[in-house]
């Protein structure tokens, strides 16, 4: 059930990105180009996405559990660390250089454009190297759910 839901929601997410113009890297660099011909589209997209989820997350997280799992899996990190700010800074540089962040890049793989394939392959390499940097948090569920880490160790 959760797998079918994830597929449908991934599809909806991609349609949202495509419809809103975010799969066009020119729109993204246009948004970041505040001293040139500024394109505010991304602000409307993000504003709308945050507005919807800001309201719904408050309501959803007031529930004791999600519909199809025992509990919510959320990041527990609280502190603003060098990893957080430094990593976000590097991400922003790559984002500005290309106009791609991970979602639109993955969706754009279907075009088969060499540019996108090179970007995603390099991103996979970066993710692997980033995992070895001291202080890098694991993707959330491994750090906060002892049951899952035990399952993983048992394998």
């Amino acid at each position, binding site marked *: 059930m*959760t*797998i079918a839901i*994830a597929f*449908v*929601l991934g599809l*909806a*997410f*991609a*349609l*949202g*990105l*495509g419809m*809103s*113009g975010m*799969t*066009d890297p020119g729109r*993204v660099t246009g948004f*970041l*180009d505040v001293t040139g011909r500024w394109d505010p589209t991304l602000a409307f*997209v*993000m504003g*709308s*996405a945050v507005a919807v989820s*800001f309201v719904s*997350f408050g309501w959803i997280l007031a529930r004791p559990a999600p519909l*199809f*799992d025992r509990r919510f899996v*959320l*990041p527990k*990190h609280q502190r603003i660390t060098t*990893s957080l700010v430094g*990593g*976000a800074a590097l*991400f*922003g540089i*790559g*984002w*500005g*250089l*290309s106009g*791609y*962040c*991970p979602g639109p*890049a*993955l969706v*754009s*793989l279907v075009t088969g454009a060499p*540019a996108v394939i*090179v970007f*995603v392959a*390099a*991103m996979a*390499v970066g*993710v692997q*190297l*980033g995992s070895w*940097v001291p202080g*890098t948090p694991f993707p959330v569920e491994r750090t906060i759910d002892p049951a*899952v880490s035990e399952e*993983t160790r048992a394998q």
Partner: protein
Amino acid sequence: MPLDTITKAIVGGALIGAAASGLLLCNGRIAGISNIFAGVLPRWDRDTPWRLAFLGGLLAGGIVVLWAHPAAFGAGAPRSLPRLALAGFLVGVGTRISNGCTSGHGVCGLARRSRRSLAATMTFMATGVITVYVVRHVLGLPLP
């Protein structure tokens, strides 16, 4: 900017927010693309199947967009492969060590009222703006 562009931006953004809400409500998970992608790379665990399904959904959605409106992927802007490789690498490393990207920090994190996500979002927006300024206006290089 045209009203049509604004309308599509708001409706598309709402769809992104609704998809993120649906994943939290049904599966109890955050729709952060960089961590979903990172999570399928190292090894198989309990979360790998739904992550692969979500990524498969992104590709399926991409095929629908390609069929319905191929121009959504941008016109043939000049694209230097070495620069895209460098950009992809920085996006991979940066999102991994900061634990999120535009969706995880910029949408879901802000929706969760996370201070860390606010700090991350302000940081990547700032370095993105600086990078575009330097590349396009100082170095005079073409951008998409």
